[in-house]
């Protein structure tokens, strides 16, 4: 138990670091935790929505995959999809939704695919996502 808790605390503290390299280490370290608590899920969602570095956000999408059944993750990814600062992150979220069969995200994807302000590759991917989820 102590070892698991230590690992969890280490991961959480890495995710707060100034350096993007350390935050990446924290995000991928979360995959090593056997039964991660809600704090880890919250920290990963926080990273997905607010981390200043695009590559750290991308890594958090992958780390969130194993929690894709949780409502908070489904809602958080829909919310993060609307942030257009990093198109590559939006595409990763769309793929996440398709792979985890997030049917409840179809409306958000449809809106994004029709958003003329969105990146072109993102719009195309969103349209593909709607099609995949409606199969």
């Amino acid at each position, binding site marked *: 138990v102590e070892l698991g808790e230590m690992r969890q605390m280490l991961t959480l503290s890495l995710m707060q670091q100034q*350096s*993007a*390299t350390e935050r*990446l*280490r924290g995000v*991928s370290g979360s*995959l090593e935790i*056997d*039964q991660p608590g809600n704090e880890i899920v919250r920290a990963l969602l926080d990273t997905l929505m607010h981390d200043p*570095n*695009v*590559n*750290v956000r*991308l*890594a958090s999408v*992958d780390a969130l*995959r*194993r*929690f*894709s*059944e949780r409502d908070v993750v489904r809602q958080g990814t829909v919310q993060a999809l609307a942030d257009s600062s*990093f*198109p*590559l992150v939006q*595409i990763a979220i769309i*793929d996440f939704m*398709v*792979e*985890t069969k997030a049917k409840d995200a179809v409306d958000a994807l449809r809106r994004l695919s029709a958003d003329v302000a969105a*990146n072109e*590759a993102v719009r*195309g*991917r969103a349209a*593909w996502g709607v*099609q*995949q989820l409606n*199969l």
Partner: protein
Amino acid sequence: MWHTPKSAAFVAALMGLLLAPSAFVRAQGDTNRVSMPFSDPSRPGTVRVNLFQGSIKVTASTGREVVVTTDETIVTRRDGREAVVPPRPEAIGLRRLTQPSGLQITEENNVMLISSGRFMGGEDLVIEVPVRTNLNLSAFNDEIEVEGVNGEIEVTSMNGEIDLRNVSGAVVAHATNGEVRVSLRQLTADKPMAFTSLNGDVDVTLPASARANLRLRSDQGEVYTDFDVQIQQARPGPTPGQAKVAPAPPRPPLPPLPPLPPGSSSKREAEQRERARRELERQSRELERRNRMLDDTAIYGAINGGGPEFELRTFNGDVFLRRGK
């Protein structure tokens, strides 16, 4: 190239020199140059640059100070004091009441912050740093180049390309619309790295002895390497190009819990509840493990026996992973 306003500024600076020979103007051509030390030069400092317009070029030098060269006026702040380079000769002896505009350089706690004080920014920057320096560089419209620096290097560009040559340490780089080109001479052990782009190629050269777990992915392009990559798993998933791929089978329902044996002693009930709880936990672990395996079209592989995770990813470009010396 001759821009009239700049030549005018140059002439003004020259006149300043003639009129006030004691002024500490160090104009070279129409270029301004400022040298700024870190507060604790004995440990590696960090240089952070954020520009909307204009390119960033960082090179390693043997010096211990950071030297910034640009065509802009430079305003430096350090220990509460402020200096403007070059000062307007007409203003000598007068106090300035407005906020200064131009390139702003501030140093605090070994972090040097360089940003444009103007609305859109503008000029290109050349920065010399000590070899051991951490960098955090971000540009919007123009390219970012780094040569020979050893440290944690974080680089982000929206429209320009990224070119890191002969660097060491650990790199996290993203160019949304440009190419990402990185050659690493030496890696810091156990540090993860990431090199990504939306529309550009990702071209990375690692030392031949680099140990890493790789995650390589190009959605619309190809992945090339001359490393001996031990492929670990590659699970093809649905991609837009193959929309006819059959949908993945639905996740099997959870197996039923083991039936509770008959009996009514409260101790036995507690035991049964405990057993049921453990079984539920086991199942949820199993589910999370399977979700973890459920992955995308990325190629996973290890080089030299594996190590920290390196991600190379682009949406529209190609990925090149090259074996250096």
